[in-house]
């Protein structure tokens, strides 16, 4: 039963990883930007959440309503200024600028908020509670909610990109920037919208992470960015639902690794990543035609 429990926990944490990963995948899909500051922005969202809750004393779940738009606005302006001017200069500059941004954010958080770890909602039933299936399988409320949010976010993105007229614009710009520009679409604004959406999902990921685990300035690169990336590659580059598949595979691998030896949790996840890289480099849910 311990193994069944490990797999169930793995599937549920996969939802959290999908929340980390879908923003990374979206920004790569639309703008061809691999944002190395992705994880740090999630951590920023967590800190904004901590700040909002401390200052206003509003309930934890309501703070999400504030944090997500705040991060979306930050995403729009970040894209229109820093990332766009890096994009104009080429892929290498984009990588360097986002790497620099990652370092600036991480150390600014260290400077202003110290290395102490924080959490959100400690003591809430939502965060600590769970219900049991049988004697061994525990289903924490929080992970169930996060998983549901992840599925809802992916459904929403899917609907937005494939059904709405603005989503059509985003896809047009992703396919051919110049042709879209000639047809009157301002690609820079569309890029800004895509970045706002991506950072909105990042904000959800960051808030979920600070409830699920504890938040500290280094979590962005050590954990969130690498997990997001591994989930994207396992699932398949450029596939939205692939991020959920990748997240679930990563989650299960980690939980099974932890079941074998508690210190092998991370290693097991990365080994599965390398295995996928060797056996199926296009990812489990491949959409070759689209990339």
């Amino acid at each position, binding site marked *: 039963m311990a193994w069944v429990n490990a797999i169930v926990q793995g599937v549920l944490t996969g939802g959290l990883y999908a929340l980390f990963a879908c923003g990374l995948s979206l920004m*790569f899909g639309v703008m061809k*930007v*691999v944002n*190395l500051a992705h994880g740090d922005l999630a951590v920023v969202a967590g800190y904004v959440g901590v700040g909002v809750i401390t200052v206003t004393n509003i309930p934890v779940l309501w703070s999400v309503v504030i944090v997500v738009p705040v991060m979306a606005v930050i995403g729009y302006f970040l894209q229109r200024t*820093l990332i766009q*001017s*890096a994009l104009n*200069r080429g*892929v*290498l*500059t*984009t*990588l*360097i*600028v986002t*790497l*620099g*941004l*990652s*370092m*600036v954010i*991480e*150390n*600014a958080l*260290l*400077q202003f908020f110290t290395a102490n770890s924080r959490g959100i909602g400690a003591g809430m039933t939502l965060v600590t509670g769970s219900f049991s299936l049988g004697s061994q399988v525990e289903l924490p409320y929080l992970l169930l909610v996060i998983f549901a949010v992840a599925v809802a976010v992916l459904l929403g993105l899917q609907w937005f990109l494939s059904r709405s007229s603005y989503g059509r614009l985003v896809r047009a710009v992703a396919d051919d920037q110049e042709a879209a520009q000639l047809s009157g679409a301002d690609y820079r604004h569309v890029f800004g919208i895509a970045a706002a959406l991506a950072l909105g999902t990042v904000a959800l990921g960051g808030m979920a992470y600070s409830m699920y685990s504890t938040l500290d300035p280094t979590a962005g*690169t050590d954990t969130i*960015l*690498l997990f997001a*990336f*591994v989930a994207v*590659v396992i699932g398949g*580059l450029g596939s939205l639902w692939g991020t959920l598949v990748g997240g679930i595979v990563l989650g299960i691998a980690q939980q099974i690794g932890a079941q074998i030896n508690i*210190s*092998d949790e*991370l*290693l097991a996840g*990365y*080994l599965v*990543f*390398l295995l996928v*890289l*060797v056996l199926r*480099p296009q990812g489990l849910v491949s959409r070759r035609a689209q990339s």
Partner: protein
Amino acid sequence: MSVVTKAGPRPAESFLVTRSQRNVVWTGVGALIVVVVLALFPYLVYSGTTSLMVQGFIVLTLASMWNLLAGYAGLVSVGQQGFVGLGAYFVLIFALHGLSPFVALPIAAIACGVAALPLWWLVSRLRSGYFAIATWVLAATLMLFIERFNSLGGGTGLPVPGFTGMSPTLLTAYTYWIGLAVTVAALLAVYLLLRSRVGLVLTAIRDDEVAARSSGARVGLARLLVFVVAGIGCGAAGAVLAISQLQVQPSADFSVSWTAEMAFAVIIGGLGTIEGPIIGTVVYMVLQQTLASYNAWYLIILGLVAILVALFARRGLWGLVDEHLRVRLFPVGYWLRLAGDNDSSGRRG
């Protein structure tokens, strides 16, 4: 990067292709003098200065390797700390078997080059940004793998044996000399590599990858070679690190801050030139020494400077020097001169 001012057919004999506009011999003699003076440092300065310079040597070696990867081969690796850590741990492993750490250093460097082969096979499947994070994941995996071995100190690390019986003065001097030797070897290797046929391919990739491929350049092979050379260089730097720290520690040796340091030294100095990393390392060390007391501020400022340079001075500090003086300390490119024209009308390098 190439500048062609006049188009149209010209008689072939009116071109003159040279490596450099000035006499290379003087640069060679100058470099030799610098190395000799640096080698005398342990006799001249306090040990605090030499250990600071060992840090500088490590950063310079790493920066030249990262420059080779990103500046020439177009491979942005965020996982070179994997090789730093491997180099350090190979020294530990050989030292635990009774070898002197100084003898272990070259073997450790070669071992890192060998390890680079299977790692390249893994990460070369991904491109650009995804390649970057894949190398990072790989470095994290290597660290987690090494932490599993309790005989290597597990998660806390071990002191490197084999230094007992050496006087502290002698140890400091030896460490300094081996650091200097590794740096000189790294710069020389980069210089010779870029002057070879592979260097021509690499310069072509740097300038325009698609054009290089369509001209029949073996881009994949050149990249593999660069990845292996960078593995050897970063491994050697890691070995110097283990010797200068007298211990290995997984989270410090495999820290991503190594890659941040090497990348930012290269960006600030100038990507795609040999001189850039040297200037960048000097700037980096000066920034570090002046701002070190402000803790995280120094990394914040370093990150901001790197962003600004990447956006507004893309060829770095050396690019600014080069624009005004048109000098090459390490002539690896070609100058194209027209007969009867003393000024160069185009250049590659």
